């Protein structure tokens, strides 16, 4: 494929049939290795696709899907689902806000403003926070804070701190130095020098990153409940486990609406910020 791209970059000649020379040995070997990996994977998993797609299994699948309809539209349950949706939103929102604050705090040393040692240290912390997924954090936080949305909030905040901290640190590193340096040359130090000199340069970018993460965190918050961290996820898990598919269907619809609404609002706000 490497050879493909090179011989035919953006020209009409690419219509010409490729010669045998294009089939390089390493491409063949790579393709072969990939194919072998796929075959080995299926062999290792030993999934019985025959029975998976047999008539019997298809019928049970269809029956399972059918049991989701009609969704439970009882007003009392709708209220519960709405509460779950708002709680999910709250978890995502508070988690993102906490993460933005903590991320900015760690981004300052991580951007190399306080020396190499502090930068290495805080980068290590950010990487650690980032490479543990939200759901794993959630299982740990459920132990630390008990079942409920607060555990989910903390889990989101921890992972997102890692992500946002890294993005913020990069933004701060790439911002022009002179505005803050000139304030320092006039005897200003510490937090005010940063807030007047550098923060205005990176502020919009940081807010944009925050919104982007908020959208992702809304999606994540809907599933954190699977490990007991509250919100719509916990409802879905609960109703599925006691075979109340009609209620589960309502929860799924609520998830869908929540994601759509937040995406829409976030788009609007971002467009406004880009204008202002």
């Amino acid at each position, binding site marked *: 494929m490497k050879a493909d791209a090179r011989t035919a970059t953006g020209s*009409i000649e690419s219509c010409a049939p490729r010669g045998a020379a294009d089939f390089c040995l390493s491409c063949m070997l790579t393709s072969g290795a990939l194919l072998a990996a796929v075959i080995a*994977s*299926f062999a*290792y*998993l030993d999934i019985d696709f025959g029975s998976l797609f047999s008539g019997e299994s298809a019928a049970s699948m269809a029956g399972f899907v059918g049991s989701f309809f009609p969704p439970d539209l009882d007003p009392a349950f709708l209220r519960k689902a709405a509460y779950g949706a708002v709680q999910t939103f*709250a978890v995502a929102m508070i988690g993102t806000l906490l993460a933005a604050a903590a991320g900015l705090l760690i981004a300052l040393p991580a951007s190399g403003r306080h020396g190499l040692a502090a930068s290495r240290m805080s980068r290590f912390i950010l990487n650690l926070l980032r490479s543990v997924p939200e759901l794993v954090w959630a299982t740990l936080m459920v132990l*630390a804070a008990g079942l409920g949305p607060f555990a989910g909030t903390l889990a989101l905040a921890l992972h997102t701190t890692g992500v946002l901290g890294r993005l913020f640190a990069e933004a701060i590193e790439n911002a022009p130095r002179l505005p803050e340096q000139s304030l320092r040359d006039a005897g200003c130090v510490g937090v005010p020098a940063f807030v007047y000199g550098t923060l205005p340069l990176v502020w919009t970018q940081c807010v944009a990153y925050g919104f982007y993460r908020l959208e992702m965190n809304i999606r994540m918050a809907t599933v954190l409940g699977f490990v007991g961290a509250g919100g719509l996820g916990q409802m879905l898990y609960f109703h599925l486990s006691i075979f109340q598919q009609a209620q589960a269907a309502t929860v799924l619809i609520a998830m869908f609406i929540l994601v759509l609404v937040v995406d829409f609002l976030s788009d609007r706000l971002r467009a406004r910020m880009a204008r202002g």
Partner: protein
Amino acid sequence: MSVASATPSDPLLHRDPAARARLGWALVALVLLWPLLVLAEFRPWVLFDASNLRVMGSFLAGFLPPKTSMEFMGYLLKATLETLAIATAGIALALLLAVPLSILCTRALSVSLIGPGPGLHGGNALRAAGRALLTFLRAIPEIVWALMFVRVLGLGPAAGVLALAITYGGMLGKVYTEILESTDTRPARSLLEAGSPRLAALAYGLLPNAAQELTSYTVYRWECAVRASVIMGFVGAGGLGQLMDQSMKMLNGGEAATILLVFLLLVLLADALSSTLRRALA
């Protein structure tokens, strides 16, 4: 300056015109923030609650030393291989979904758009339906699919593979469509105008330009799939996640610590492998 116009003595000038709006927004933010904090049950002090501290303390104390018995390492190796296999098989199935759908959806391979020719409305409708299907497939997170497949297929990797296939099929299909449309589409167009079949136009007109980007994105998605397959284990879809879930439920800190370490290593490895492959492609 010497030519300065007389300074207006309007007292309003001495007040910050943005202050009122700022105060208003601050109040709105506070009014909104308060119920959010209540809803999220934001109570940081529960972290220092004696019973929670005890649970967490004994759990974390169990982290050291991480469990390294031969028997457990055997389980761990099996689960790690399973995770990798779920990711690879899931991506392979996702390709089966994504490739035909993206060929169906991309405007670069439409015969009816030439001219426009006969069957334009039918073609447009088909493309719109394909795009809607792709949107639906990736709208629901893979872990929700996994949770539901576990109900039908039982605990085990099959649920994870199918869940990955559906969500990642949707994602790959959408991105493939975009990549095919964003490269130079003129070669394919000229082939189609000369009457060549669509698959031939794809192979000779589009792929030479787009192959590198397509492969690169697929490798990146595989890296994401490794992460996702760990996470799906938490709802019973096999692999490292399921093992971790069991250890957490038994509050076995030593096992959890080992699994976490292996998990971090695995993610780092997938990351490195993916970036090496992609660099080799570039």
